[in-house]
């Protein structure tokens, strides 16, 4: 049997570490801010964005990396959901953006029939098919998310805890809120090539939600979410190396199981 240290395995391990950072930083704030539905909205918007990038590229209008196109759409959906949510609940706004971006995704995919597989790749994701270019993009966006989260940590916390108080204590809460939604959307797109739009929800929200159930303080949530996401990912890689199943699926399954276990653990305790 081949050694497990194949280049594609090493790339997938690096990808899991990057994904775990995103699941920890942006995932935790998603849970704190109570916008986990945004993850589904942003990931499906990214599909539409990626499909549009492919349309533009094959018709020679504009050369755009599908992931960058995806990121632009995801951020746009996050921001418009944040804007619409000033009057209505944010989940309604996300649901409508979700529906709109799926319509666009299907429309663009119907235009690019023969290239549609590239978009479907983002829907399913594959940790073993990542290229160095993909990893570089993932690393850059993870760094962006990390820096913004560190700079605005206190503001993000305040806005998640109590928007009205944040405003009254002098925080520009609407800008901070948009920034938070933006890093969540960027983080979601980082994960797409690895775990796909269908499973990103599990890898993104479940580790932080599980950590949130059992943590004694906020820093514990970040650490635990990272550990849960990384271990789930490594387990996925290990199993799929020997059993030829999707590593992302095993990882997402593990992460979601951890959530239910931590809820049960908390109830028993």
């Amino acid at each position, binding site marked *: 049997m081949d050694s497990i240290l194949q280049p594609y395995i090493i790339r997938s391990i690096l990808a899991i570490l990057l994904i775990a950072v995103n699941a920890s930083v942006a995932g935790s704030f998603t849970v704190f801010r109570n916008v986990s539905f945004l993850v589904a909205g942003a990931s499906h918007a990214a599909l539409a964005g990626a499909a549009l990038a492919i349309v533009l590229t094959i018709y020679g209008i504009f050369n755009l990396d599908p992931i960058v196109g995806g990121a632009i759409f995801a951020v746009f959906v996050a921001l418009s959901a944040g804007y619409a949510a000033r009057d209505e609940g944010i989940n309604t706004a996300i649901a409508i953006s979700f529906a709109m971006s799926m319509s666009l995704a299907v429309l663009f995919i119907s235009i690019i029939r023969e290239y549609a597989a590239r978009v479907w790749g983002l829907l399913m994701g594959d940790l073993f098919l990542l290229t160095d270019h993909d990893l570089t993009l993932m690393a850059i966006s993870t760094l962006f998310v990390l820096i913004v989260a560190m700079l605005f940590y*206190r503001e993000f916390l305040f806005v998640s805890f109590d*928007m009205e108080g944040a405003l009254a204590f002098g925080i520009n809460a609407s800008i901070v809120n948009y920034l938070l939604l933006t890093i969540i959307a960027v983080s979601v797109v980082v994960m797409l090539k690895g775990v796909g739009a269908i499973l990103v929800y599990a890898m993104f929200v479940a580790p932080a939600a599980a950590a949130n159930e059992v943590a004694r303080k906020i820093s514990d949530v970040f650490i635990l979410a990272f550990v849960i996401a990384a271990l789930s990912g490594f387990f996925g890689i290990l199993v799929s190396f020997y059993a030829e199943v999707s590593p992302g699926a095993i990882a997402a399954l593990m992460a979601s199981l951890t959530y239910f276990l931590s809820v049960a653990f908390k109830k028993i305790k």
Partner: protein
Amino acid sequence: MKTIVVENVEFSYNRENALENVSFSVNEGDFVAVMGPNGSGKTTLLKLILGLLKPKSGKIKVFNLDPWENREKIQNYIGFMPQKEHISSNFPILVKDVVLLGRAARKRFSKLTKEDEKKAKEALMAVGLENYWLKKFNELSGGQQQRVLLARALAVDPKILLLDEPFNGVDIPSQDKIIEVMDKLAKKGVTILMVVHNINPLLHHINKVILLNRKLIAFGPPSEVLTAERMVETYGSSIPIVVCEEGYAHPLFGDTHG
């Protein structure tokens, strides 16, 4: 010295008037209760004073500054305690984190210092929760949570305190503690505006009452403001007034309030 002056202020949300022609002024050390039915503009009034909303017409001055144009300056003077219903604490934020949020918000990107921690601890001691520094906020009772939010407002050394329904879902000991703290602060010269449904626990401590129902129904000492006629004018139904042994007029709200 006048700390807040409100002159002929009007405000509307989407063409519906929330406040009409409201005028009053409060002085340093005034302890004021703001009363009125739901939707009478109480919270809007606090937001206008904080500079979060711009009046449609009329003038507001806080320490002689227009809050809308000098929001940052004004907010440095004000400690605010929002309604607890607007708080989302489904994550393990600690009491110390909550109390420090207010001070942290004013420091932008600079680090929290020992002084910040000292102020936060003093504020927590003032509300009688000094032993809760490392407790999870969402594991406290409703009353204790309100006291932590009050400590957050106190920790910024405010000259004006704005409290939005601090007694909602609060047990009697916490309520008494909040009033005791307010009493001391007012005597030290802090101006306090407190939105309440049930004024009775406060009545012996406040020196002014604002009765609001979009318009200012009455403003002044409680003995002058709390009359049966004005209560009808404010709430649209008659609320009996009982005068206690010490001569204070207590409106008797049904069990639905406070």
